[in-house]
């Protein structure tokens, strides 16, 4: 078969000493920036872009790709240990991952995240190699109308994210949607609710919002009652998951990988939905959904696999179409052009050694990441023993540096401080931040796609049901909603949500 000869060539490219080293370097840097709260892969790749000038393009891209998926591995570490999601895809990991850490099972959570990610990464790599080109055609079925329907489906997931009252969760989703409308109007260029602050003209940034509302607010809350920490400090538990925990995780990992891989292909950052979808699915399928939000291992295994699978398959639109689905991929396009490779559908045929070399390097990189990460689990867990007075200032400083480095802007740091206060008030009043972040992440895309779809249909709403893919997605959303609202089911769910 063609794939095998191509993959063989790819491994030939990736297994040179230089490329192996670059792959390792990328994974190592990626893990580090992922772990450092705030410093994201976008800022890192932007900073390292000029350094790759001297490298050959394949080597440069192998390293930059390593940083990207390495950061996805590392990102779960901060989500689990200190409840700070560095990226939208790590938001759901905080729900059960951080609870596990609080129960002294941080090592298990980290271990499952790493193993699940490794499995997902391997499968997704094969997926890209075997099906990348045909799947691109499937992805092109996704126009604005389909996207909007997909986002509607995503919003239905939000009700499942709630740990407390459904009403409060819905209110938070709407708050998130509202926050997403801040910024310049897509069509007219008018500024909306920017309060005259220039920084807001492109909307609220995800990083300051997420870090403020999750991480900083959590720190303020912890300062309130220091004794809560004793649980963490006293017993750290197993460093690695035991057999029964692994058995519990296998199915979530498989399902998460499948969901994440498919959503990752969509050109337009469909990958952000992966972890949310996976979490929603695990909670629905669980025999006892009430364990979710209290440290259910499935709630870490599924989403973590989904996010890593999505991170890999997000390369498909870039490699096969030359169209970047998210900010990191846009940087990769920049890296390609700087190196004289014009991204587009011809990369596969014109630069096969780059295309297959990168795919092969992803598999090698995933293996390296497990080797890098598993021994580190012990170190990370020990970090939890660092006293508050040292750990909190360190987290705050790293977060502030990270936020500053995104736009080189001090105002973003102020925003984070503001959102920290908001987040603290929300915690006090019993509102969950996760549904709000989901609403916020989906809101922007949703508004954009809704308006594009309606302009394309010249104002006719039937476009959403006339197009088959869109209609199917809406139907699935509707069914999920009905199941949630059916009286019998709803009683069961109430038991699940009212702790």
């Amino acid at each position, binding site marked *: 078969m063609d794939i095998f000869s191509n993959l063989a060539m790819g491994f030939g490219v990736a297994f040179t000493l230089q490329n192996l080293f670059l792959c390792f370097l990328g994974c190592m840097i990626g893990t580090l920036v992922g772990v450092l709260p705030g410093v994201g892969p976008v800022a890192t790749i932007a900073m390292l872009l000029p350094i790759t000038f001297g490298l050959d393009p394949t080597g440069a891209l192998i390293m930059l790709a390593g940083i990207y998926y390495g950061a996805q591995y590392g990102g779960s570490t901060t989500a689990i240990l200190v409840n700070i999601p560095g990226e939208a895809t790590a938001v759901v990991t905080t729900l059960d991952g951080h609870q596990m850490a609080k129960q002294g099972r941080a090592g298990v959570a980290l271990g499952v995240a790493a193993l699940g990610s490794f499995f997902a990464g391997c499968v997704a790599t094969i997926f890209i190699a075997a099906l990348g080109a045909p799947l691109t055609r499937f992805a092109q079925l996704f126009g604005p109308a389909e996207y909007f329907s997909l986002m509607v489906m995503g919003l239905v997931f939000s009700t499942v994210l709630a740990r407390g009252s459904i009403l409060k969760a819905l209110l938070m989703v709407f708050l998130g949607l509202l926050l997403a409308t801040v910024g310049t109007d*897509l069509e007219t*260029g008018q500024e909306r609710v920017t309060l005259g602050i*220039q920084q807001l003209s492109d909307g609220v940034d995800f990083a300051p919002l997420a870090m403020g509302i999750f991480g900083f607010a959590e720190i303020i809350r912890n300062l309130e009652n220091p004794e809560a920490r004793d649980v963490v400090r006293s017993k750290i538990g197993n460093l690695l998951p035991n057999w029964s925990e692994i058995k519990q995780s296998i199915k979530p990992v498989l399902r998460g990988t499948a969901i994440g891989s498919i959503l990752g292909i969509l*050109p337009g950052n469909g990958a952000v939905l992966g972890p949310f979808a996976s979490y929603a699915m695990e909670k629905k399928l669980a025999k006892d959904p009430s364990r979710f939000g209290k440290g259910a291992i499935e709630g870490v295994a599924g989403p973590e696999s989904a996010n890593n699978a999505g991170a890999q398959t997000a390369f498909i639109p870039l490699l096969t179409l030359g*169209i970047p*689905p998210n900010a990191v991929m846009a940087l990769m396009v*920049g890296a390609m052009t700087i190196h004289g490779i*014009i991204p587009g559908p*011809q990369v596969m045929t014109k630069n096969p050694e780059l295309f297959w070399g990168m795919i092969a390097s992803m598999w090698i990189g995933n293996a390296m990441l497990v080797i890098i990460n598993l021994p580190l689990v012990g170190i990370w867990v020990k970090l939890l023993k660092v006293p508050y007075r040292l750990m909190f200032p360190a987290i705050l400083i790293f977060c502030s540096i990270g936020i500053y480095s995104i736009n080189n802007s001090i105002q973003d740091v102020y925003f984070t401080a503001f959102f920290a206060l908001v987040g603290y008030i929300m915690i006090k009043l019993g509102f969950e931040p996760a549904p709000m972040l989901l609403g916020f992440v989906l809101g922007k895309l949703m508004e954009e796609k809704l308006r594009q779809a309606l302009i*394309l249909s010249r104002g006719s709403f039937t476009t959403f049901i006339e197009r088959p893919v869109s209609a199917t997605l809406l139907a699935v959303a509707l069914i999920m909603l009905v199941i949630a609202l059916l009286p019998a089911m709803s009683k069961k769910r109430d038991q699940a949500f009212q702790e």
Partner: protein
Amino acid sequence: MKKLLVAVAGLTALFAGPALAQNYPTEPVTMIVPFAAGGPTDIIARLVAEPMSRFLGQQIIIENVAGAGGTTGITRGAEAQPNGYTIMMGHMGTHGAAPALYPNLKYNPAADFAPIGVAAGTPIIIVGSKKVPAEDLQGFIAWAKKQGDKANHAHAGVGSVSHSTGILLNSMLGIKSTYIPYTGTGPALNDMLSGQVDYMTDQIVNLVGQINAGAVKAFAIATPKRSPALPNLPTTKEAGLGGYEVSAWNAVFAPKGTPQAIVDKLSDALSKALDDANARKRLDDLGAVIPEGAERGSAALQKLVVSEVARWTPVLKEAMAAQKK
């Protein structure tokens, strides 16, 4: 004694300026790029900054300050200390279209800067989806006129190059197509590949891969000469639309008040950088157009800014007013 001190202080102040300019640069220079890393302007800035650093003997550090169509970064640059250590990569949008698009713009492109020189421009290409039943520019124009508002015109967001240049094209041709706004060239191209939108104008860098692969139809390139990157693509003039010549030019500016000696030094370094063989090759590969001879330097850039503001303001204001109705 006090008098002496005052005199010494005065003298120091007097000599400090020229002395600083003479030794300039003694520390790294920051170049603000008002767009995200990896975009066309960022790439050109990085390609030019590298040889410039060599000629200046100090590193030029790129600082990406993206937002509001580039005006966030340029506002910050305009307000920086005019000492030569903060310069910026301005652009057709920030120094041509912005006054028409941003009523609260905090700078005047023609008055608030010390122009250093044009770096390189990326030509604009008119492309259409494969579903558009036309093979050349005239066929496309005839089709678009017949379609009226049924034609879907994609652009990469208000304030983007593809937005301004698209409006100019429609206004010159009297085409009344429906604008579909996107948040970047990527998503717009994606919907063009699947045939949901019909046409757009954008920079060659973003399109050449798709054009070469036959995924979209290219109708004309809006430069006086054909591009070596797409030798078979006729110019707008050849295709019978001579007035439509636009390029997304990028140019280096310093804040107003930067000492002339420093401006000259930077201008000279930029010109040398544009003659650097390696930089030239990479810019050529991108399809970028490098200014030659009289097109280089401060005076040429000042003239360009004035003429571009005059060119874009009426067209864009009219189009934006029509959209808000």
